[in-house]
C-alpha cells in the first residue's frame, strides 16, 4: 500500500498493511521546533534551521526528508495565516530564548519587554497591542487577553464574529496552491481550513486580531456559556452559516483530494473531568457540529476530525452522532479514557488519531524502554480492524529527549514488522 491507501484503509475501518503514522500535519499532531531540530541532527539530515510553521506552540515544520526517514503517511494543508494573523512567508532567522536558530515568517515581529519576555504582534503590526507572550525562558507563546470592560446591556454578537466571514479569493488561491504542491505525492492529506471550531478557547482571545471586541477573556467566555447562552448561540449560528458557505467554495477548489478535515479543536475534557455536561454539549455545540459534519458528508468524501483533550468519554456517543469520524488526541491518561475501553466501545464508529504515547509523563520523562512498551501496547489495542492513525497524545513538547522520540518511532516500526 502507498501511504494514501494505508490511511484510507484506517479511516474506513479496514486493517491496512501497517499502522499509518502522522506527525506534523495539524497544529495538534506536531513536534516542537527544538525536537524537530534534534531529530534532524539525530538522523544526520542536512543541517539548516527548522521552520516554525505554527508560532503559537512553536511547532517545527516536518519537511519531506524527515517524513521519509520517519515513515510518515500524512501531509497537512494549512490556512494562509497563522494564529497570530500573519502569513508564513519570506522566512527569516530567529534565535529562540534557548539559543536555537530557527526560521520564522518575515511577519513574526517581536519585542522584548522589561521582564525579558518575548511579545508578538497580530498581523506583525507592532503599532497594535501585542497579542502573545513567551516567558523569558519559555518554549511557547500564550495569548494576551485583551478585554475591554463588558457593557452587559450593549453586548453585540457581531463583535465576536469579526474573525468570521466569506473566505477571500486570496485564501482560496492559497488552498489551491497548497493542494497543487502535494499533487502526485503518495501521502494522505488532512486539511486545516479553519472557521469550523465553535468556541475553541485558544481562538476566543483572537490573537490574530489587532483590536478584538466582544467577549475575549477566557474565564468570561466560560462564564458566558452558562450565563449568556443566547449570545453564544447567535455567534455560533452566524459562524456556522459562514462556515458552510466557505466549505462549499473550498470544496470547489480542493475537491475530494483531501482525505480528512480538521474540523474542530474545542476542548471539552480536563484531566479528570470536563468543561461542561453532556446536556450542555448537546444544547450548545451539537447542533452546529451536526450541520457542518452533515454538509461535509453529503457533499464530500472528507472524514471529519475532532480534537479534544482530556476526559471526553461521556461526550463520545454525541460526537459520533454529530458526525465526527475521527477523535484526537485520545488522552488515554485522563479519567475513563483507557485505550482498551475506548476501542471496545467506540472503535467500530470512531477512528483514533492519537493515543499512541503519553506526552505528559512517559515520552518526556520515561526511558526509551518504557516508551517502547507503551507504544507496542497502544498499537496492539488500537490497530485491530483499522481505525487508528498513530500519533502521540497531542504535540511532542519541548525538552522531550530525542532518544525517546526515536524509540517511539522504532517501536511503531517494530509493531509494523519493519525492523
Amino acid at each position, binding site marked *: 500500500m502507498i501511504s494514501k491507501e494505508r490511511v484510507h484503509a484506517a479511516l474506513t475501518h479496514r486493517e491496512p498493511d501497517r499502522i499509518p503514522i502522522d506527525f506534523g500535519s495539524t497544529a495538534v499532531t506536531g513536534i516542537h521546533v527544538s525536537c524537530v531540530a534534534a531529530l534532524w541532527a539525530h538522523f544526520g539530515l542536512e543541517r539548516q534551521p527548522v521552520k516554525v510553521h505554527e508560532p503559537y506552540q512553536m511547532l517545527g515544520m516536518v519537511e519531506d526528508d524527515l517524513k521519509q526517514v520517519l515513515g510518515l503517511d500524512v501531509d497537512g494543508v494549512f490556512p494562509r495565516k497563522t494564529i497570530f494573523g500573519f502569513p508564513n512567508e519570506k522566512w527569516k532567522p530567529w534565535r529562540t530564548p534557548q539559543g536555537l536558530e530557527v526560521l520564522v515568517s518575515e511577519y513574526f515581529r517581536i519585542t522584548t519587554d522589561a521582564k525579558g519576555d518575548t511579545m508578538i504582534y497580530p498581523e506583525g503590526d507592532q503599532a497594535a497591542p501585542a497579542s502573545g507572550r513567551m516567558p523569558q525562558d519559555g518554549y511557547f507563546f500564550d495569548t494576551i487577553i485583551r478585554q475591554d470592560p463588558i457593557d452587559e446591556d450593549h453586548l453585540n454578537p457581531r463583535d465576536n464574529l469579526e474573525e468570521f466571514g466569506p473566505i477571500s479569493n486570496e485564501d482560496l488561491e492559497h488552498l489551491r496552491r497548497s493542494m497543487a504542491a502535494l499533487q502526485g505525492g503518495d501521502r494522505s492529506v488532512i486539511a486545516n481550513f479553519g472557521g469550523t471550531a465553535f468556541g475553541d478557547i485558544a481562538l476566543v482571545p483572537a490573537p490574530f486580531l489587532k483590536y478584538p471586541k466582544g467577549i475575549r477573556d477566557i474565564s468570561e467566555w466560560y462564564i458566558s456559556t452558562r450565563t449568556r447562552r443566547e449570545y453564544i448561540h447567535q455567534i455560533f449560528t452566524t459562524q456556522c452559516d459562514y462556515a458552510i458557505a466557505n466549505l462549499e467554495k473550498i470544496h470547489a477548489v480542493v475537491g475530494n483530494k483531501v482525505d480528512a478535515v480538521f474540523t474542530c479543536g474545542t476542548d471539552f475534557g480536563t484531566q479528570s473531568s470536563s468543561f461542561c455536561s453532556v446536556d450542555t454539549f448537546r444544547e450548545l455545540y451539537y447542533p452546529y457540529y451536526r450541520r457542518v459534519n452533515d454538509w461535509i458528508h453529503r457533499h464530500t468524501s472528507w472524514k471529519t476530525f475532532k480534537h479534544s483533550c482530556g476526559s471526553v468519554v461521556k461526550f463520545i456517543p454525541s460526537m459520533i452522532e454529530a458526525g465526527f469520524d475521527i477523535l484526537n488526541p485520545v488522552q488515554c491518561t485522563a479519567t475513563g479514557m483507557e485505550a482498551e475501553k475506548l476501542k471496545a466501545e467506540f472503535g467500530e464508529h470512531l477512528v483514533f488519531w492519537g493515543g499512541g504515547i503519553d*506526552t505528559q509523563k512517559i515520552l518526556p520523562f520515561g526511558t526509551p524502554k518504557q516508551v517502547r512498551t507503551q507504544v507496542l501496547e497502544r498499537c496492539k489495542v488500537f490497530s485491530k480492524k483499522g481505525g487508528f492513525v498513530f500519533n502521540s497524545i497531542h504535540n511532542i513538547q519541548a525538552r522531550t529527549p530525542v532518544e525517546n522520540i526515536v524509540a517511539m518511532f522504532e517501536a511503531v516500526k517494530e509493531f509494523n514488522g519493519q525492523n
Partner: protein
Amino acid sequence: MSKELYDAILAGDMKGAVAATEKALSEKVDPLELVQKYMVVAMDEVGRRFECEEYFVPEMLISARAMKASLALVRPQLTASGAQPAGRVVIGTVKGDLHDIGKNIVASMLEGGGFEVFDLGADVTPERFVNAVSEKQPHLVCLSALLTVTMLSMKTIIEALQQAGVRPQVKVLIGGAPITQQFADQIGADGYGENAASAVTLARRMMHAN
C-alpha cells in the same frame, strides 16, 4: 436569615450575593458567622457539586465571583474584628508558565473556604515565592503548572524554600494537569490536589496536621 447569601453564591448570582450581604451586615449579623455559616458552606457545596459533575468550570467561576463580591464587603469588618482565617496561603503559577485559570479557581475556592489567599499571579520565580513566604508567613504554599516543561521548576521552588530556611514552616501543595501524586512525592511536596475542590480538602487537612 442569610440563607439568601448561601443560595446566591450557589446560583452564581453576584447581585443577589451582594444584596444579601449588605442586608445581613445592616442587620448586624456577625461577619465571621456570615463567612463560616453561609459563604464557606456554599463554596463547599460548589466543590461537592464539581466533584460529582453537577457543576463544571463555568458554574465554579460564577459562584466564585459571587462569593468574592460578598467577601469584599465582609472583609473590612472581619479585619476590624480581628477574626482569624482558616489559614494563610501563598499561591502562584510557576516560572515560565502563564496558565492561570486553574490556579485562579483554586485560589477562589480556598478563599471561599475561609483561607486568606495571597495570589502571586503567573510566571512566578522561586525568589518571589521565598520572599512571599518571608513577608506573609503563610501556612501553605500552593504551586500550579500546566506544562511538562515548567512542572520541574516546582522542585526548584521547594529547594529555594529549603535554602532560605523557610521550608519547615510551610506545607507545599501542588497541582495542574500533568501533576500526579507520584510527582509530588518525588519532588518532596507535602500534597497534591487533583482539582480545586480536592485542593480545599487537602489544605484543611494540612492545617490540622500543623
